[in-house]
């Protein structure tokens, strides 16, 4: 845009200059012709007039500088009586384009052309050259050329150009600044909104967008806030509902404990004297006792589950030797395994068996898995393998007994899941054991995985990171796969 403007200005200026140059030269030619006609015919007089004509630039229009004059013999004038070729000493003949001289030769009117004016001192300036004819007594036809330099125009134009550039630059700065402000006005609220939305997603439900003004952005903000409030309320309602429910399960479990303690003690007392009762009552005492045991286990597991649900499970972290813990669990269960004719093999391959865990929970997982394996081993051996790598430790418990239907494997960690609902459980588990075991593993950022095949046994692998929060890079023991 700036250069187009500059073009227009320069064209205007040049055209104006051309116009004034043409009228000035017409006037000058007229004046020169008059002087030659009336000035005298001596050699000296002619030369003097020629000198005056050439150097009269200031006399005609004082304000217009940069006019040079060249007086040169016409190409038709082959043999003049007197040669009065004159040139204002500052310009060279080369400034006149030869094309212009040819045109003047064949023209009755003044001709003009744009040219580069060469000065004696060597510097060149764009300008125009206007040519006309003079008829000089005794001398014959002569050409007179007026050279008008554009120097002042070029200077003016340069000045204009510089101002235009400056203005352009300032304009550019202004545009950049305004754009930045506009973008800030538009982008910033959007970016803020995106950030708030991310935080909201991350769980900070109380986050709201600050709404300023009444444009589309602020309407978006208002809508977002309304949505956020609705979601927050809904989630709070659900949270409360679920809290009330968990609280209820927890309270029920706790409230049951005191009467259960009384029942437990009363039953123990009766059970201790069962020999003194008649058979039916004696058997009843036994049943009472065993069912109270079962009830107690169920209640304990239920309470544990309610703690997981309420994410209230407290962790008691200490460093333990996993080898030692597994070995102790196997020893503790040796009575049961002996009773079931099950041999438990332990294979330890551990560089560093120390791991940071809640010992009670890990021991509970191990006991649960071992008891299950022994229960379902069908008098075949149970293989326990411990392996570790830099990031994690794994315990695999593999039995070769009745196994699990592969289709049922994904469900083994479900609460109250039973492999075969009709089959009596020999050790009377609560149906919550594996579910609790998996929750315990997850509390340690570990995994508990299962594999099974009917009549080929089952494998459970507990993998724990060395420290809670560590990432398990690779599992030290891979789960079996069903071919």
């Amino acid at each position, binding site marked *: 845009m700036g250069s187009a403007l500059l073009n227009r200005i320069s064209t205007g200026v040049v055209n104006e200059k051309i116009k004034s140059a043409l009228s000035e030269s017409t006037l000058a030619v007229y004046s020169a012709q008059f002087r030659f006609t009336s000035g005298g015919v001596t050699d000296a007089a002619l030369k003097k007039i020629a000198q005056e004509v050439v150097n009269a630039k200031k006399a005609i229009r004082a304000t217009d500088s940069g006019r040079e004059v060249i007086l040169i013999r016409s190409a038709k004038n082959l043999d003049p009586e007197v040669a009065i070729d004159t040139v204002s000493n500052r310009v060279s003949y080369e400034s006149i384009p030869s094309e212009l001289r040819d045109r003047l030769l064949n023209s009755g009117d003044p001709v003009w052309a744009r040219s580069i004016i060469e000065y004696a001192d060597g510097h060149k300036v764009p300008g125009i050259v206007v040519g006309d004819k003079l008829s000089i007594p005794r001398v014959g036809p002569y050409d007179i050329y007026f050279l008008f330099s554009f120097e002042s125009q070029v200077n003016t134009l340069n000045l204009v150009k510089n101002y235009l550039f400056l203005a352009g630059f300032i304009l550019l700065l202004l545009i950049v600044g305004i754009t930045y402000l506009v973008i800030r006005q538009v982008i910033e609220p959007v970016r803020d909104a995106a950030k708030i939305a991310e935080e909201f997603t991350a769980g900070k439900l109380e986050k709201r967008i600050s709404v300023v003004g009444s444009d589309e952005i602020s309407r978006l903000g208002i809508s977002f806030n309304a949505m956020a409030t609705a979601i927050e309320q809904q989630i709070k309602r659900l949270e409360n509902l679920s809290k009330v429910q968990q609280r209820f399960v927890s309270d029920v479990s706790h*409230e049951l404990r005191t009467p259960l*303690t009384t029942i437990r003690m009363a039953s*123990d007392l009766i059970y201790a004297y069962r020999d003194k009762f008649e058979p039916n009552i004696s058997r009843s005492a036994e049943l009472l006792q065993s069912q109270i045991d079962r009830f*107690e286990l169920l209640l304990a597991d239920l309470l544990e589950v309610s703690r997981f649900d309420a994410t209230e499970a407290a962790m*008691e972290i*200490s460093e333990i*030797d996993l080898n030692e813990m597994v070995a*102790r669990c196997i020893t503790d269960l040796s009575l049961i395994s002996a009773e079931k004719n099950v041999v438990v093999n332990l294979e330890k391959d551990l560089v560093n068996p*120390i791991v940071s865990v809640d010992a009670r929970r890990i*021991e509970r997982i191990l006991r649960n898995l071992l008891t299950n394996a022994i229960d379902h081993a069908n008098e075949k051996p149970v293989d326990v393998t411990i392996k570790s790598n830099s990031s994690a430790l794994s315990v695999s418990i593999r039995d070769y007994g009745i196994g699990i239907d592969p289709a049922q494997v994904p469900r083994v960690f479900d609460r109250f899941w039973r492999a075969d609902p009709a089959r009596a459980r020999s050790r009377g588990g609560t149906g919550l054991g594996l579910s609790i075991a998996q929750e315990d593993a997850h509390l340690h950022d570990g995994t508990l995985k299962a594999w099974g095949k009917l009549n080929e046994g089952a494998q459970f692998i507990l993998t724990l990171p060395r420290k809670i929060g560590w990432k398990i890079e690779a599992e030290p023991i891979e789960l079996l796969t069903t071919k």
Partner: protein
Amino acid sequence: MTSVLVVDDDQDLAEMLGIVLNGAGIEVDLVSRGDEVMDVFRNNPPDLVLLDLMLPGLDGIEVCRQIRAFSVRVPIVMLTAKGDTHDVVLGLEAGADDYMVKPFKPSELVARIRTRLRRTSSELSGILLLADIAIDILEHTITRDGKEIPLTRLEFDLLVALAKEPGRVFTREALLSEVWGYRHSTDTRLVNVHIQRLRAKVEHDSENPTIITTVRGIGYKAGVSGTRGH
């Protein structure tokens, strides 16, 4: 005859506890409100207190503190329906020696009471030296520079268990079995809290213990070798 103060607001449970403990040859006093405990305690100091944590009048933790302020020696066993809550740790820190989670077997309760009441094994006698602490087994006192440091019976038992084999590393399980009489337990809180309490009393700087030191990944040991006296 051994006497136990049972503090529980559940009348039926308290009565049942009475029956069971009487059957084991233990005399029982019953209190059902927390704010009545100290009156009974002062008038008829028991050999042991069975204390429910949830009580009307004054809660069990506070009762525990009051009893400890009055008597350093009497063993306190908490009865609680919540085995894993903060309350248990608070109770232990307030001075309880042990706790039982409801429901418990009567035989277990009686065994636990007997463990708490038994005197430290009689095969040891005389003075054990551990660093600058002198442990008088018979007198059940420990002294430093001739000044007695008051310890609960359990803290004393814990210290003796560690001190009689200086340098031996005890796992928490071993200590639970040795001091608390637990056969299978990994309740590390019990050990940890009491070690902390004991350190607070015997260490010069309990942040940097030198008398009872932690062995990473295993347990505790009496840090500085002592000499068995007499």
